[in-house]
C-alpha cells in the first residue's frame, strides 16, 4: 500500500496542481475511463508553439488525479515539440510508483487526453493507445 499511496501522490490527489478551467484555451479535450467512471477535461493555451497554460478538471482516483497533476506541471511552459516527444513511460516515471495492469488506464487518463490535444493542434499523430 505504501508503495502506491506515497505521501506526494496523496498530496497531489488532495491538492492537484493546475486544476481548473482556462479562460482562453487553444484546445479542449474531454476523456473518460468509463470502466471506473473517471473523467478528465484538459485544456491547453498555446502561444507561439509554447504551452503557456494548462488546466484540467474532472473526477478520478488518486492515481489518475496525481498523474494529471504531475503531467500538467511537467508540460507547462514547454514548447509543443518537447511535449510531443513525451512518452507513456515518462508519465510512469513521473509518478514514480509501481502501477499494476489494472490501474494503468487510471495512470494514463491524462496522458491520453494530452495526446488528443496534441493531435488536434497538429503537433503529432495520435500515439498508440498505451493500455
Amino acid at each position, binding site marked *: 500500500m505504501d508503495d502506491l*499511496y506515497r505521501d506526494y501522490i496523496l498530496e497531489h490527489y488532495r491538492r492537484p496542481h493546475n486544476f481548473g478551467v482556462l479562460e482562453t484555451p487553444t484546445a479542449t479535450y474531454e476523456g473518460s475511463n468509463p*470502466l471506473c467512471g473517471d473523467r478528465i477535461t484538459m485544456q491547453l493555451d498555446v502561444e507561439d508553439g509554447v504551452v503557456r497554460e494548462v488546466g484540467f478538471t474532472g473526477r478520478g482516483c488518486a*492515481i489518475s488525479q496525481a498523474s494529471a497533476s504531475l503531467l500538467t506541471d511537467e508540460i507547462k511552459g514547454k514548447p509543443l515539440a518537447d511535449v510531443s516527444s513525451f512518452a507513456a513511460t515518462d508519465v510512469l516515471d513521473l509518478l514514480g510508483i509501481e502501477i499494476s495492469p489494472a490501474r494503468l488506464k487510471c495512470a494514463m487518463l491524462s496522458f491520453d487526453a494530452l495526446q488528443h490535444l496534441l493531435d488536434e493542434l497538429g503537433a503529432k499523430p495520435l500515439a498508440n493507445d498505451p493500455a
Partner: protein
Amino acid sequence: MTTIEERPVATETEAPARAPLDAAAIRADFPILDQSVNGHRLVYLDSAATSQKPRAVIDALDAYYRQDNANVHRGIYALSERATAGYEGARVKVAKLLNVNDPHEIIWTRNATESINLVAYSWGRKHISRGDVIVLTEMEHHANLVPWQLLAQEKDADLEFIPITDDGVLRQDVFDVLLRLKPKLVAFTHVSNTLGTINPVEDMTRRAHEAGALVLIDGAQAVPHLPVDVQAIGADFYAFSGHKALGPTGSGVLWARRELLEAMPPFMGGGDMIREVHLRRSDWNDIPWKFEAGTPDIAAQIGLGVAADYLRDLGMDRLRDHERDLVGYALDVLPREVPGIDLYGPMDPEIRGGVVPFNIPGVHPHDAAQVLDRFGVAVRAGHHCTMPLHERLDLGATARASFQCYTTRDDIDALANGLKEVQRLFGV
C-alpha cells in the same frame, strides 16, 4: 440424439423453522478461501462478479477430464456415453433447481449474456419490428440492455425504461403507464447486481402478460441467492450465469417455455443443432439442441449440474436467510464503524439481496478497493456494468461488497476494519 430423463420435481415442504447455514463448514468446501493475500486471510466479497466453486465442482471437472472426456451425442463408445450422460444429466439437475418440469427447456449457454443475446437474435429479430416497444428498467446490467439496443437499432424499435426511486426501487406506477404502450417484451432483472434490489417478479410478470407482453427475466443475481421457481414466476424467458452460481466459468442457462423455443429460429448454425443438412438448406434439431451449435462446454455444464445439486442440498431458503442476515448486519455495522460511509439501495433487507454498494466520501472507489486488497479484502470498484444506473444516481463509480453461502459476519467486520484504514490513509 439423446433422451433427457424427465422426472417430476417434487416440491419440498420446508420445515417452518430453518436451521441456519453453517458457514464455517461451508467455507471448508471452498478450497480457494484457504489462502492469504498480502499477509491477510482472503476475504472474498465479489461473489456478484463470480462465485467461488466448491470442491465437488472442481473435482467433477477433474474427474471428467481424467476419465470421461469425449464429444457428446454422436459417439457410440463408453467415454462418449458417459460424457453424454453427464452433460444431459446436468440439465435435469438445473431443471430441478429452477423447478422446471421439462429439461428440454434448459438451453446451455456460456453465461447470462449469451442467453439474453440468444433471445434478442432469435426471438427478437423475428418478432420485433419498426415502432415496437420493449420495456426495460434503469437498473439493468449491460447484458440486459445492450442486446436490446442492438435489436432496437436494427429494427427501429423503441426502448422504454422503468425508472427507479432514489433508494433503488422500481417505480411500479410508471411501469403501469409504460404497459399502456403495449410493449412486445418486458425485460428486467430479478435482483439488481448493483443495489441488491429484489424486484417483485411474479407481480410484474402477471401485469406484463395482462398487457400482452412477453417477459424475460435476468436471473443472474437471483438463482445463486434465493429460491427461484420459474413456474411460479410464470415468465417466458429466464436467464442466468452458472459461474455466479458456484459453477465453472463457461456455464450458463437460458430457460424458456417449450412452445416459444420450438417456434424460434436458430441462433448459431453448425453441428448438433441440425437434423439434416444439404448444400443450400437445412432442417433443425429438436430443442434444446437446436440452440446448441457446435461442441458445447461439456465440462462446464457438468460442473454446473454439480453446483445446482450443491445449492439444493444447502437449501435455497436457508441461503436466502443467510444473505438476508448478512445484509442486515452490513447495513447496521458499516455506518457505525465507518463514519461517513455512503450506502446505496433499499435499506430493507427483506427486498435486498446480498449486495452492498458504498462510497467513502473523498476516496475514489478504485483507491478504496486497492487499499482493501492490501488487507486481503476483495471488493469490486467501478460501475459494475450498470453505467446508466450510476448516471441516474449521479455516481461516477461505487465500491461493492457481495455475498455467497461462504460469506460470514467476520468478512463484513474485516471490510469495516479495512475501510477504517482507507479513511486513515486518505485522512478523511
